[in-house]
Structures are given as structure tokens and as C-alpha cells.
């Protein structure tokens, strides 16, 4: 049995006087023990909302949640609040995007770590202090004992995120959710944080859901990748197959839009035309249709069904890119030469 099985998760925001917003519109994926799963997509595609729904961190009012999310067989979405609260921080943990605003500015770092230890592992006093210092050390913060007494504004961005990671892994959770953990950080720090996550995950066998809009992050880290668009998963595959054979036009577009240092001079960038607001509702057809280079009449007949291939690659498209087309596109744009991006023999994947 998988660690986490998400089935048809749906989150609708309904505020007085406005149309309901289907932020998450039928998302399904699984996470196995120790697996790293990516949720990729542009801002507004519902990936963050998905994770917040799983953790039970969405507001109660004006929010409707549907579907099932089975964590070791227990549905997170219907669990009583107290049980969910017990699980948060101990079985499942989450780290967020902006490390400065995610830390309480008036409480010392040490206390913010020990409070998790106290809550879930019952640790107090000196043992808790020692454990907290050890945790900070493990995530790579120098001089941890001193840091315990310092306040968030006294730490640098990278160190704050490390501290948050320490708080998240303090109780050895089975599942860690990272919502754009590196977006707010410098590029050099980004790489360090990702390395840290990789290490921790490997050492403890923690499963990780990595949420990001950055395909590069995903390429280096994830076993399975789910590409989301407008609240649904439009393509899901293991890492190599996705980069080697992107099928959904959106994925193709995403990969094609990555600028590369070795692109010929004067070559134009290829963004996906339009924006996330140019969607239509899934009930009317494929939400991506207005922006899709590959669209046909069929695309407006109704929501495209999920197609599963025997390789475990699945996609939601009636007119997907064939591998020939991908080859052809790769020929004209060096970017899609997938093997160059994903190289299993090197530590740091690709050139970033």
C-alpha cells in the first residue's frame, strides 16, 4: 500500500457574491514510502492548495474539499481535527516558500524548534535543547548552540530555511511536503537546500512531495513528476520518461520555454502564449485549449479523459505530442534534447 493515495481531490473556494473558484479540480496521485514526487506547474495551477488541503491547513469557511486522501489507509480529509493536529509535525510535515515570514519574529529560533519536540516527542529542558542544537547542526547551520537564542531576523535567508527544515524533520515525519522551498532564495543557496533535502530524504527514508514551478528543481530531485494545469494533473510520469517523451502540449511548452546558455545567439525565447487566466473551465473542454498550439475541435467536446500507457506514463489530452513530433521540435530547439538535462551519472543534473 502506498504511503499516500490522493483520489480525485477537489478544493473549491466560495466567497459571498463571487463565482466559485475550483482551485483543485480532481487531482489524483500516489506517493510511495521514501519516494520523491514532484508537483509542477505555473502559479495558480492549484499545486499549493493541494498540499494545504492534504495537511488540513485550509480555512474552514468558504472552502469545500472533496475526494479522498489516504495516508496509510486513513482519509486525511475526513479525519477529526484533533487527530490531524497530532499527525501534523510528527507524521507529516511541511515547509513553505518564504523563510522569513514563516518564522515567528518575536520568538527565538531555539524555542521554535523545541516546541515541536515538546509537542510530539515530549522533550523538555536540556535534552530538548541538545536535540534542537543537533538538528540545527544536521541541517548545516554553524554554531548551533548560539543560534538557539537568536531571532529569525538575525539569520540569513538560507539559514532560516534550514531552520524551518530542521523543525519539519524534528520528529522524523513519514512524509515531507516542500512548497517552493527555494523560490525565495539565491540560486547558490537553492542548490544547497535541495542537496540538504535530498540527503535527509535518503537518510531517513522520508517521502517528499516537492512543489515547484521550476523544472530544473524537479529534474534533479524527483522520482515521479505530476504536471498540473488549472487544478488538474495533465501529465504524470517518472522522471526520465517525462523529459525524454513529454506528451501533453503543456509539458512540451514548459520544457520548450526554458532558456539555455548554449542556445544559438539571437534565438528567441519561446514562452507559452497567453496566461493562466485565459483558461476555460474543464467542464467545457480542455482548460489549456485557448493557449494550445496543438488544439483541435475535439478539445472543446468536454474534459479530456486520462490516458494511461503501459509504461506508467499518463496524460490528459486528445491530441498529444508524439515522440516524432518531440524529436522534430528538439531538432529545431536544442532545449528538448532530454538526455542532456537528465544525466543519472552526474551528481548535479544538467547545467543550471
Amino acid at each position, binding site marked *: 500500500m502506498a504511503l499516500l493515495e490522493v483520489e480525485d481531490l477537489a478544493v473549491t473556494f466560495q466567497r459571498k457574491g463571487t463565482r466559485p473558484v475550483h482551485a483543485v479540480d480532481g487531482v489524483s496521485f500516489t506517493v510511495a514510502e521514501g519516494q520523491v514526487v514532484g508537483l509542477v506547474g505555473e502559479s495558480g495551477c492549484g499545486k499549493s492548495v493541494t498540499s494545504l488541503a492534504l495537511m488540513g491547513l485550509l480555512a474552514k469557511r468558504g472552502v469545500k474539499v472533496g475526494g479522498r486522501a489516504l495516508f496509510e489507509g486513513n482519509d486525511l480529509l475526513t479525519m477529526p481535527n484533533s487527530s490531524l493536529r497530532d499527525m501534523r509535525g510528527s507524521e507529516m510535515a511541511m515547509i513553505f516558500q518564504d523563510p522569513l515570514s514563516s518564522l515567528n519574529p518575536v520568538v527565538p529560533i531555539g524555542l521554535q524548534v523545541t516546541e515541536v519536540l515538546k509537542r510530539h516527542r515530549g522533550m523538555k529542558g536540556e535534552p530538548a535543547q541538545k536535540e534542537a542544537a543537533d538538528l540545527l547542526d544536521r541541517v548545516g547551520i554553524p554554531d548551533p548552540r548560539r543560534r538557539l537564542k537568536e531571532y529569525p531576523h538575525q539569520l540569513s535567508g538560507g539559514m532560516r530555511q534550514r531552520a524551518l527544515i530542521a523543525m519539519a524533520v524534528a520528529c522524523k515525519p513519514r512524509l515531507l511536503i516542500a512548497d517552493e522551498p527555494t523560490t525565495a532564495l539565491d540560486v547558490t543557496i537553492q542548490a544547497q537546500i535541495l542537496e540538504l533535502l535530498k540527503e535527509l530524504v535518503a537518510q531517513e527514508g522520508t517521502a517528499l512531495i516537492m512543489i515547484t514551478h521550476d523544472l530544473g528543481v524537479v529534474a534533479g530531485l524527483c522520482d515521479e513528476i505530476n504536471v498540473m494545469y488549472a487544478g488538474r494533473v495533465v501529465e504524470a510520469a517518472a522522471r526520465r520518461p517525462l523529459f525524454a517523451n513529454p506528451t501533453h502540449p503543456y509539458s512540451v511548452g514548459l520544457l520548450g520555454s526554458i532558456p539555455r546558455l548554449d542556445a544559438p545567439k539571437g534565438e528567441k525565447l519561446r514562452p507559452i502564449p*497567453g496566461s493562466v*487566466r*485565459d*483558461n*476555460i473551465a474543464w467542464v467545457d473542454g480542455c482548460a489549456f*485549449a*485557448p493557449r494550445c498550439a496543438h488544439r483541435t475541435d475535439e478539445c472543446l467536446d468536454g474534459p479530456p479523459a486520462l490516458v494511461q500507457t503501459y509504461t506508467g506514463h499518463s496524460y490528459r489530452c486528445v491530441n498529444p505530442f508524439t515522440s516524432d513530433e518531440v524529436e522534430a521540435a528538439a531538432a529545431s530547439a536544442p532545449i528538448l534534447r532530454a538526455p542532456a538535462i537528465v544525466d543519472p551519472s552526474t551528481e548535479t543534473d544538467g547545467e543550471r
Partner: protein
Amino acid sequence: MSTKTERIDRLAELTARTDEGGHGLWYEAFRRLRRSPLAITGAVIIAIFVLIAILAPWLAPYDPASQLWLSEIRGSEGFIPGPRPENWLGVDGLGRDELSRLIIGSRQSLLVGVVATLLGFTVGAILGGLSGAFLGMFGKPGRWIDSVLMRFNDMALAVPSLLLAISVATILGQGLVTVMIAVGVTQVPVFARLLRGSMLAQSHSDYVLASTALGVRKKRIVLNHILPNSMSPVLVQATLSLATAIIEAAGLSFLGLGGADASNPEWGVMLADSQQYLATNLRLAVYPAVAIIITALGFTLLGEAMREALDPKLRK
């Protein structure tokens, strides 16, 4: 091209983003205000109040100064007639019709509120405006001007407002004008601080930086750009100040510093005068008090609604 594809293209156009930008802060704020129950209630109350004040002489059934029913009171050992057909709100301690006094009194109260706020606003805005402009745009010498001006301001702020009003009123002597000036003076530091802060914040904005870089003269930047953009919190405060002015004026009257004019009733004075009848005729205090409370509430509701509507943090 099939009809389906045409449909898609049209759909794409339809779902294309409509440009929401381009509307000013005021326009959006006004739209938000229109929907806010707080704002509407406040505005209605204010409208009624102003209407009554303007139409007062025609609305009041009797002359507020004439003690028509004095004989009734003298005769019956302190019994003062209450609400009855010929006096809807009854009669006051000196035999005058309470309703007429209340209606005519609205004029004075409105006058006090408006004049005091205008005074505070004008002087405060000049003080604060100069401060803010110099501090933000003129570097070192500007800072010096700001310190000097703000010193005065802090001095005024050091004394709690009612006491400040009392001090001013003592110099000027009793009367309605005194009350107006005294209350006005207490409002000056508030406006000064507010406008100064607002202008200071504006002068750090990107558009000011851009204008300066383009070589626009400082005076122009201040007058044409910073000043108009700093006005919104000041206007909110002006509305709220009107409420405070009416209440503080009542307080001053209570202490005996208000204009005790028989022919020109004023709510605060009416309230102060009603003290002597508290044990027997509480309603003589209730009527002017309720008038004051509702009017002040009207301005406060509108002012608070304005503050929320103009808050940039709440803009979508």
C-alpha cells in the same frame, strides 16, 4: 476553419484578461463604499443631520427661545411636562419646547463640528505638509525644518486633548467661538502628524524617484504628485474628526466653557444644563445626548468605512 475552432478562438478572446488597472484609488474606493453597509448607514445619518440643520427654522414647531410653558413648571413643584401632543419631546426646565431646541441646536452643533475640523485640518495640513515636503524632498535643511515644526507638534501632543482645549478656552473666555477654536486646536497635531507621515511615505515611492530622475522640479513633484496622493488618510481623519469635535465640544460645555446662549441652543450646552434635572427628568439629558451620539456615530461609521475602502492593502 471549422465552427469549433472559431468557437475556441472566440472563447480565448472572451476569457482574455480585461484590463482592471487604470482606475484610480478613488474610483475603486467609491465603488467599495457603495456596497458597504457601514458607509451607507453613516452617509444616511449625515445626510439627515445636514438636512435638518439646513431646514431647521422651517422644521422646528416653536421658537426655541420662547419659554411658553414656564408657568406650567413653576406651578407644579418641578414637574416638567414630558412628551405630549403639543410638545413631541416635552418641555425643558425653562418651559421651552425640547424638540425645537434640538432641531435648532443641530445648526450650532454642525457649525462647531465643521469649523473646528476645518481649523484643525487647515492649520494641521499646512504644518504637516510643510514638514513632510521638506523632510522628504530637501535633504538636510529639510530635516531641520521638520524637526522644528515637529517639536511644536509634539508639545501640543504632550497635553491630553481635553486639557489642551480647556487651556485654550480659558484664555479665550466662554462662548461658542471659543469652543470651536479650542477643539480645532486639539485637532491640529493629529492632522499635522498624519499628513507629514503620509507625504513622507509618498516621497519614498518609486514614482517620485522616477520623477526626480527625469528632472522634474521638486516643488512640482510635491504639489502635483505627492500632495494629492497623500490626501486620503487626511480625508478619513477629517470625517472622524467631525465626530470627535462634536463630542469634545459637548465635554467643554459640560465643564462650563461652552456658549450658554439662551436663543441659540447647542446640544452640548443642553446636555450640560440637564444636569440639574437628572434625578427627576433624565430624558432632558437623553434627548441631546442621543442626538450627539447618533450624529457622531454617523461620521464615525462613514470615516471608518472610508478608511477600509482606501486601504491599499485591501486592493485586489
